[in-house]
């Protein structure tokens, strides 16, 4: 259902319009703030945080939208060309808004922008799935003793 909607929306996006004043953006809570004066920005929260049913839909989207083609299949999101999404660590931040931004707008190392194809609801569904992935213990240490 989600996928059908997502694919139908392909090609319907409008070109962004130029503006001289920055609109209120999304707050990136992990970023350093110059002079302790934070820019005008909104806090985004995942509306489906912890919802297991949404996470299951997100798992379907994760393969249907070819996320697994870069981020790995075994276990899902274990990393391939793209980074591991199941290690509890995030190249561009792990807050709700940061994961949302990475998927919605893309990132400049080849992560495509899926916001047009998926819409905000589809992206939140993926975020919910990624946040449901179990983080294995001892991520930081790899030992070959015994």
């Amino acid at each position, binding site marked *: 259902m989600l996928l059908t909607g997502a694919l139908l929306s392909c090609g319907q996006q409008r070109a962004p319009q130029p503006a001289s004043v920055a609109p209120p953006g999304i707050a990136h809570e992990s970023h350093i703030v110059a002079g302790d004066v934070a820019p005008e920005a909104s806090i985004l929260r995942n509306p489906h945080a912890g919802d297991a049913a949404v996470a299951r839909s997100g798992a379907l989207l994760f393969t249907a939208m070819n996320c697994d083609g870069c981020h790995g299949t075994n276990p899902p999101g274990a*990393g391939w060309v793209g980074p591991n999404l199941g290690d509890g660590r995030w190249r561009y931040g792990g807050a709700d808004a940061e994961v949302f931004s990475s998927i919605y707008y893309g990132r400049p190392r080849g992560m495509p922008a899926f916001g047009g194809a998926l819409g905000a609801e589809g992206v939140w569904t993926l975020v919910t799935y990624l946040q449901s992935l179990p983080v294995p213990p001892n991520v930081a240490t790899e030992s070959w003793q015994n």
Partner: protein
Amino acid sequence: MPATRIAALTWIAVLGCANCAGAVGQTPGPVDGQWTMPAKDYAATRYSPLGEITAQNARSLHPVWTFSTGVLGGHEGQPLVVGDTMYVVTPWPNVLYAFDLTREGYPLKWKYRPEVSANALGVACCDAVNRGAFYADGKIIYNLLDGHTVAVDAHSGRELWKTRIAEVGNGETTTMAPLVVRDRVIVGAAGGEFGIYGWIKGLDLASGRPAWSARNLGPDEEMRARGDTFRPPYDQGTDLGTHSWGNDSWRTGGAPVWGWMSYDPDLDLVYYGTGNASPYNPEQRPGDNKWSASVLARRPGDGSLVWAYQFTPHDNWDYDATGAMVLADLTVGGRPVKALVHFDKNGFAYTLDRASGRVLIAQPFTPLNWAEAVDLASGRPVLNPAKQTGVSRGNVKDICPSLEGGVSPASPPAYSPRTHLFYTATANLCMDYATKHAQHLRGTPFVGVDSPYRGGPGGYLGSFLAWDAARGRKVWENKEPFPNWSGALVTAGDVVFYGTLDGWFKSADARTGRVLSKFKVGSGVVGNPITYRGPDGRQYVAVYAGIGGDWALLAGDTRSDDPADVRAPADYVKDIARYTSQGGIIWIFAL
């Protein structure tokens, strides 16, 4: 260059050519102590007539110089040595270094830092590698990862031209080394994991402007296949590149070009292999899927297709055929043959007649079970029905070799006209293969497979071996604890050189395989050793250390540069990260 020096090099070259009766298309010009193209010569032999280093003295080989490229990632490919300058291309961001070999410590003459889009990093399926440059007409010519070919003045380091040849947004990246024939620069693009519409192009050497473009699949007209000149040895009919793809699937069928090219000046044919058919689920593309997983022979001048042979029809296993096509004149069954020898990902070593494309010999060089044999009358593999894949077959277990290949196409072999043997790395891995329906969405992968690996039969994961291509049999084999991802070099001193994934650089007796020297070079070797005569007249051997080139191979845990990306070891190489981590080092060895 002083006249005495030229005379000395000419003498060496003449001596060398007395030893290279079996090789074809040697580098034009008198100086044979150089290494001016990726595979040393047009025949792609990676054989050097230099003979100072021998099986008797190689044990005293030791490093004489190193340099950090400043870049981490798979250091595939090889340096060039032209005159007294060594040229090195790094993985993305594709820096070109020019080292002055006449001065102590080999200081840089210049370095060239092109602007290369970081977006290519996420589109290159298998690490941000570069397979090297080609020297021609005073220019160093190579590909940038983001779909550009550049020509740089070999003397000054100035950019002479830059041509966009590929579209990253379509899933195309450019990792292969160009081949220059006369006034044509021949290039192709990777993208078999993105459903590209594979092609090869000929650029004008002087200007970089595209002179011709030819598809590897699709209608005859787009493939530059004309009825009166295209003569495939086993097929008849027109538009094979569309009729062999059900559901018009050729439009996103892959058949990329990311490996090596060779050239026979007498036949005026360029040879290259194509990669896998897209997507990995074969049931989405009924038919043979010509000409994916094939070797194609074209005229360099206008790109016209002369013959094509498909190693793996209807590819079920991601068996790219982008490995090197080595040209050698062999005696097969008592008959002299202009041969083309190819070690395929599918595990067979092929000896073809390079004038016609007919298969003379096809024998396994590494454990395989997807086929019983290759039928020489039809040129087709005799398939094992239990190892065919697709969504309707579910998870098909224990297929050998794995999709990493019996040898990686990134690891080119060598051929010695003295021993009449070919030398190649191997990877002994098997896999399970569970496909799913893949949705083509531009800018995203078009793959659809879960394919965990395990070690193949015999308790070893890779090897380096010598192969008699006139008889289709193995002569000796050095087994290794990890898959072997190195290219090969062989010399007139009857010494072969190769590296290992756990970071050893080795020399061995070309006739017996006995290891003569080994040195731990700081990172796994996935590059290709070269040899050259330095300004002091001595023989040197150069190789890159820098593991990478395939994320599955890397297991991810050999990386330490990204604290936001921590990966577990892979089941089949649990301890590779114990012995190596990423690097980017050029090593030079001498006696």
